[in-house]
């Protein structure tokens, strides 16, 4: 699998189709992101287990001249994030080329990922998406009595040290200026930040763009299960609008495009658990 990716990257750089390939590299300091520009340099390329690169790709593009063409070694979630960003005019997807890498079944389980593959798989084999119904954490945080769930989330958020890691790491988190910083919704200089004004504001802001990459959760030092926070909204968007962020490059989020055209049933968000049981796993 690594050799396949290396070959593709080498070809893209060697033929001058792409100016750089963003991936991971193994060096004397261990694994780290790397922008490969020299086709002879790909010996250190690595496909170490998940390191979301979409956000870094955006910054790289921003740092490079306008004509720079960037290939990115993408997992499914990376590609979906880049597509979302393209839709929202944050990046010019014409400058991008995806080298698609499929994730293993184990990786999908770790990420609670339903679609552990990019739109085109250049390396790796499509594995089965994770089965959420058996997942303990999902059950505790999303599938029990409302009072119990609220307590669970409150306890989790009480650990927050306001590192802003969730926001910094999220590839689709892009408001400028960021509402969490303005001191209006969230008190400055205090931890733990208020659960509703900090965490739920963030969750709502990315509600229809979340591609379930888990970068937020990976960046959280205190183990708040942030991925689970977004799951019900993703499920609801799927159920009511058959919409999944990052999967269709031409279709805008229903939350942006459906002010007039409500679906027959309307959108209701009271019972996360129903939507979870019925629709996840497809």
């Amino acid at each position: 699998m690594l050799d396949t990716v290396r070959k593709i990257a080498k070809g893209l750089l060697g033929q001058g189709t792409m100016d750089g390939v963003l991936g991971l590299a193994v060096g004397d300091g261990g694994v780290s992101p790397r922008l490969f520009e020299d086709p002879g340099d790909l010996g250190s390329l690595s496909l170490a287990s998940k390191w979301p690169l979409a956000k870094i790709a955006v910054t790289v593009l921003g740092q490079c001249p306008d004509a720079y063409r960037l290939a990115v070694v993408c997992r499914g979630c990376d590609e979906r994030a880049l597509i979302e960003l393209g839709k929202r005019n944050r990046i010019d997807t014409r400058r991008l080329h995806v080298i698609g890498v499929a994730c293993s079944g184990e990786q999908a389980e770790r990420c609670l990922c339903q679609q552990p593959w990019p739109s085109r798989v250049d390396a790796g084999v499509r594995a089965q998406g994770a089965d959420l119904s058996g997942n303990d954490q999902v059950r505790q945080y999303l599938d029990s009595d409302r009072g119990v769930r609220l307590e669970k989330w409150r306890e989790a958020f009480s650990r927050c040290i306001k590192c802003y890691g969730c926001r910094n790491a999220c590839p689709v988190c892009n408001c400028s200026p960021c509402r969490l910083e303005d001191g209006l919704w969230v008190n400055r200089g205090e931890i733990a930040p208020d659960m509703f004004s900090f965490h739920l504001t963030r969750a709502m802001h990315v509600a229809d763009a979340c591609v379930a990459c888990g970068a937020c959760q990976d960046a959280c030092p205190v183990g708040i299960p942030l991925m689970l926070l977004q799951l019900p909204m993703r499920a609801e968007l799927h159920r009511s609008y058959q919409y999944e962020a990052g999967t269709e490059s031409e279709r805008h989020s229903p939350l942006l495009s459906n002010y007039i055209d409500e679906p027959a049933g309307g959108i209701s968000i009271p019972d996360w658990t129903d939507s979870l049981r019925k629709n996840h796993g497809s």
Partner: protein
Amino acid sequence: MGPEFVKTVCPYCGSGCGLILMVRDGKVVGTYPDRFHPVSRGALCIKGWTAKEFIHHPDRLTAPLLKSGGRFKEISWDEAIGHMNERFDRTIAQYGAQAVGGLCSARCTNEENYLFQKLIRLGFGSNNVDHCARLCHGPTVAAMGRALGSGAMTNSIADFDGTECILAIGSNAAETFPVPMGELYRARERGARLIVVDPRTTEMAKNADSHLPLRPGTDIPLLNGMMSHILKCGLADQEYIDRRTEGFDQLVAYLKGWSPERAAEICGVAPDLIRQTAEIYARSRSAMVLFCMGITQHVCGTSNVFAVCDLALLCGHVGKDHSGICPLRGQCNVQGACDMGGLPAVLPGYQQVADIQKRNRFEAQWGAALPQTPGQTVTAAMAANDRQIRSVYVMGENPVMSDPNRSHTIEFLKNLDFLVVQDIFHTDTTRLADLVLPAACFAEKDGTFTNTERRVQLLRKAVDPPGQALDDYTILCRVARARGLDFTYADPSEVMDEIASLAPLYGGIRYGRLGSEGLQWPCPDYDHPGTPVLHREQFSRGQALFVVPEYSPPKEMPDERYPLVLITGRMFCHYHTGTMTRRSPFLDRETDRPFVEVHPRDASCRGICNGDAIRVTTRRGAIVTAARVTDRVGEGMIFASFHFSEAPADALTNDALDPISNVPEFKACAAEIVREAACPDH
């Protein structure tokens, strides 16, 4: 053409989180966490995420500055080095080598601290080298050094996960060691009980299973009450005590006078809670005791640490997986600065200056005689009336902001014949200097830092320092060579090779071996994999020693004129004297104004509302700041963080010192507050 990624270590606290810098066109343009770092595992705190913001700040010092006629003028490096050597030589000729002193830096690399103490000792002939550990974990190094033979954290940060009990005394890790706090929360999720001992209801206390809000400066009574109960219930690990310790009988005799009731009278924690806490700790099959400034920064700081060690040894909770004594070292390289001998009485590797054999070995390697008398600690030197120290070389320290009794510190520094300060920004200390040398920050040099769990990690240079600024390694070598010393190294890795040859703890440390995870000392030879847990078979001194902790209450207790206890400390979004974080826009936006925490009842009886301007006064001085009315502090106590130079907490603090380690009593003095004006935001 495109950006590069450089792996390095965060320059703030002693967690030593992995940090990846994105570099383009000679500038750091992004920071990312390291997914596979053994400590941080893909996370960073708010300061780590914003660590790039101060690097290219326009305030960076870019040229040597000589004070002339009350102003600074730019001079060349050659002139600067020539000038400082001439001034130091003048002092030595007039007053002797013991009139020269140096402060090395807990924020500089191991290599730089090693070279600094080598320069002061060989180049100036003085053992007066010290640094800010004097203000913080000096008691830890002294007490654990004596009781166990080694003054460092006995276990690793990863060891918290899997322990049954975490007893946190005098630490607010949720704000000061945020990423390792995650490890503690993980431990809790796996069943560990978190017990927090702190006068304040900190973030950590709020999220604990149990909080003991003791009166400030009453840790020894509390611990004694716990220990006497443990003995009484037969919960002491007698087998461990017999096999691995000495001095037990003296402790038993001492504890006879310390019932939980007597303890409760002094510390204010209910006797039953003391008993319960003692039983939980003693009965746990594994337990980590974690401590920080709350117990060290007292006039009985060293004794406080003895008491902590006694408790852990009593229950056999040292020298095993998930059981140990964990001082959290604050600065990115304070552990290293101590390891490198940046201390008046020890050479690199904690080898005593007074030990002739050890000294001879250094002399043989360094090719010159070493001063024989241990030097003075910085706090004792400043407090002394005879003003023996006349010329000082400060590297990467800001004593005007960090040392107690600010007006006294300023007076001391102003009265020096010569003061040279090496730093990356102007600080309250550089402004008093005769000569200022522009230095490089963490992103602008190669070298190593040692984190709180003794992990030696590589920094990798990402960008060049601005203007004519040089990294401290280069500066020190040039100053030394100008004095005729042979400081010739191809690069910092050669300095580490030299360190390894002289300090057995670092014997096996070599750049090529540090890779992605670094190495935890002791690492005595090139095949040794490093040591995650200390004292497994034997303690560093053989048997561990029970030391009877001598209790003294805080030097300055509240009275009619100053009825409140002032506690000083830290907050999550700023770092120490704020020279870096106050210049980071994101962090400054998070908190840009100084504040003091005041209990609602203390506020209301003085007519103070949240946000009002208040004047805080102690016998040393006064500051005007904003009141943050909160029940995080108990009635009768106030809390100030020391990050804000416009309202410096050290204008208030007491320079009363612990007689053994000379740490100042930052955590307790007497204060009063009075309302100055309404909150400006209304």
